[in-house]
């Protein structure tokens, strides 16, 4: 028993929750006897004298006269054994261990007044409780609140089994999965964001469900582990869209036009220097120029000299075009597309540069209009951007020649009788042998080489 007891303001029979301290009938230090009136309290209904619950010495009065006090609050502290010597300092524990003063006088109530059992009187019913809700005692400590006892089916009493593992969830045992993946929504989203396939993961959560940690573990697992999973050694990609169109065109072309490919390796050092000079010229500073521009210019000039190359085999006739729709093969995210520059023969070099920049930009964005991809007459494929030297390109259907423009590399080269380091590239020209004989093809390729080797000379000579 605590020696010093705190007396709480009782429910004075009003069913109400507070009372006003009207007058203290005792003071701190006074010695009081059992049932001696100690305080007058006024409620909404009446002034009531409250008797002392214990005999002893008043050590503390908590509220001055005139204050409103909630029911249940301590109003006075009484030392029930004042002869036993000095008191220890009051502690928080003493407040927590307050004894509730019971047996408050009960007046049979009107509505809102008191009712038996700590209730408030109502017209119909026992009345609502005025007590504070308290939780039931819990079997487990607060440190392990998540755990719930597992639901165990009734079994006949058997020799005591070893103590079960503490459950971590309502259904702790891993349940074999029958096809369906168990995972809660945020874990599914995490897996999707990380690109992890839940079907490949063994769940360690409740009911064999996949947890966050399982997903993160799968993400960081070495690729070797992933490679062992069946079904991942091959990937099946549906053939559609650009890939399908490309395939159809290439097959149609490869098996109808007899292809011949010729190669020419040329020193393009002067072309590269010409490009550098071009960049420094007025009006060219903000223009994007590349070796491909030189190749395009060479093709256009060479086509002017050999119009038969710019033609179509049409079965019973050969259609020679007086216009050049110059196709530029572009690798895009959606695949290979070959947009072309209409009437490229009319363009100045500057206009050609702008058109090529625009064409490739539009293609990379996937916004090339269909009209730009039809009607080509000659195509350049710039395989050099992939770092290779040349190739044997397949003709776009309807065209009779295509130029593969390889990487420009520094190489030892015989230049004016000496071995020098020069910028060198390889040109590959495929052509349709039905239209173009070896002689024509060779002359055409040779002219492209001449231009790239000496652009200024070619321009003057061919003009």
């Amino acid at each position: 028993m605590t020696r010093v007891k705190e007396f709480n303001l009782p429910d004075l029979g009003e069913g109400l929750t507070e009372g006003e301290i009207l007058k203290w009938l005792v003071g701190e230090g006074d010695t009081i006897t059992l049932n001696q009136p100690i305080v007058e309290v006024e409620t909404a209904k009446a002034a009531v004298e409250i008797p002392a619950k214990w005999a002893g010495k008043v050590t503390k009065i908590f509220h001055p006269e005139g204050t409103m006090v909630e029911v249940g609050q301590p109003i006075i502290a009484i030392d029930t054994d004042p002869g036993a010597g000095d008191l220890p300092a009051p502690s928080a524990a003493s407040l927590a261990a307050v004894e509730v003063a019971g047996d408050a006088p009960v007046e049979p109530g009107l509505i809102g007044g008191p009712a038996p059992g700590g209730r408030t009187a109502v017209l119909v019913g026992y009345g609502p409780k005025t007590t504070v809700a308290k939780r039931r005692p819990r079997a487990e400590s607060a440190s392990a609140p998540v755990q719930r006892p597992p639901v165990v089916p009734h079994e006949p009493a058997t020799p005591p089994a070893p103590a079960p593992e503490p459950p971590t969830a309502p259904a702790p045992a891993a349940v074999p999965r029958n096809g369906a993946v168990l995972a809660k929504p945020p874990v599914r989203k995490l897996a999707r964001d990380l690109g992890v396939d839940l079907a490949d993961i063994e769940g360690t959560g409740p009911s064999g469900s996949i947890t966050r940690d399982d997903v993160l573990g799968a993400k960081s697992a070495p690729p070797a582990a992933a490679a062992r999973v069946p079904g991942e050694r091959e990937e099946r990609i549906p053939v559609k869209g650009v890939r399908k169109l490309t395939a159809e065109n290439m097959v149609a072309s490869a098996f109808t036009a007899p292809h011949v490919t010729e190669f020419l390796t040329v020193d393009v050092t002067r072309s590269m220097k010409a490009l550098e000079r071009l960049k420094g010229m007025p009006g060219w500073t903000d223009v994007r120029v590349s070796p491909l521009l030189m190749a395009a210019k060479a093709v256009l000039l060479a086509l002017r000299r050999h119009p038969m190359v710019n033609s179509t085999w049409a079965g019973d006739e050969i259609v020679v075009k007086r216009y050049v729709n110059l196709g530029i093969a572009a690798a895009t995210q959606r695949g290979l597309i070959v947009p072309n520059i209409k009437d490229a023969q009319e363009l100045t070099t500057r206009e050609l540069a702008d058109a090529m920049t625009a064409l490739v930009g539009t293609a990379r964005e996937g916004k090339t209009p269909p009209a730009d991809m039809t009607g080509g007459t000659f195509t350049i494929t710039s395989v050099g951007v992939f770092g290779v030297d040349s190739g044997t390109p397949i003709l776009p259907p309807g065209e009779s020649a295509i130029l593969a423009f390889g990487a420009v590399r520094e190489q030892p080269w015989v230049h004016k009788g000496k071995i020098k380091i020069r910028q060198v590239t390889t040109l590959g020209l495929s052509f349709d042998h039905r239209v173009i004989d070896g002689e024509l093809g060779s002359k055409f390729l040779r002219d492209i080489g001449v231009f790239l080797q000496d652009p200024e000379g070619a321009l003057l000579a061919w003009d």
Partner: protein
Amino acid sequence: MADAENLTLGKALNTGLRRAMERDPKVLIMGEDVGKLGGVFRITDGLQKDFGDDRVIDTPLAESGIIGTAVGLAIRGYRPVCEIQFDGFVYPAYDQIVSQVAKLHYRSQGKVSLPIVIRIPFGGGIGAVEHHSESPEAYFAHTAGLKVVSCANPDDAYWMMQQSIESDDPIIFLEPKRRYWEKGPVNVDSASLPLHASRVARPGTDVTVLAYGPMVRTALDAATAAEEDGRSLEVIDLRTLSPLDMRPVYDSVRRTGRAVVVHEAPGNLGLGAEVAARVTEQCFYSLEAPVLRVTGYDTPYPAARLEEEYLPDLDRVLDAVDRSFGF
């Protein structure tokens, strides 16, 4: 006038009614024993004495007649506040409420408004006999044309009552009768929220507990108890049941990942089912556990001696919180 007065919820309702009557002479109060007696819960105490028996009207024991009369009065420009003495007495008026009150505005293409407030003391916990402890909110919330609200503390009681009377739409006003005598501060200067808004009653981080009316206090008690377990419960007082104000709920559940809905009414097709469905639709990828419901059972409300077995209490809320963390 003081900034905040400490009033019981019942007194706050009484004061709110008084303010509305002072402000607008068209506000009438009608119901069984609301006048001379001041209502069985004393919610209309003193109003007939001060406003007269032509504004605070004792009606016959005929709920259908009370609401039917209110419809006529409202059509002619009055703002009747009807008291249904107990939740279980509203059913004779149900036809008037769903057939007339809910539909006249629609039927008249918006030409007629029915600014009627139907006050219903609802829920159990007072140890009463049958018909006196029911939670009929889903019947009304399911009906288009009605708005349904429930207050949970004295400040809301004071303001939501006045806001309901000012509403041109019919309002079913559910009063948590077991909380009538609980006190709380009332800011008489300004309302903290509009009528149709839910509110975070206690911020927390681990679980969102949704409640309204009498169960808000229970949820708050559970939140206090859960602190001992190191769990932080966010309690949202829905306040408005139709329309629901779900935005604060979604915001909360997206933070906590868990939700528990609490109401006294039976779980089957109750408000909790609607709330759970909406939370699932809107917060799917945030949900660490299914939305759980803590409700009354799918039985008639039991006899008084058994009602504590029936009513959700803080332990059942905490059990649901534990279950949520089991996923």
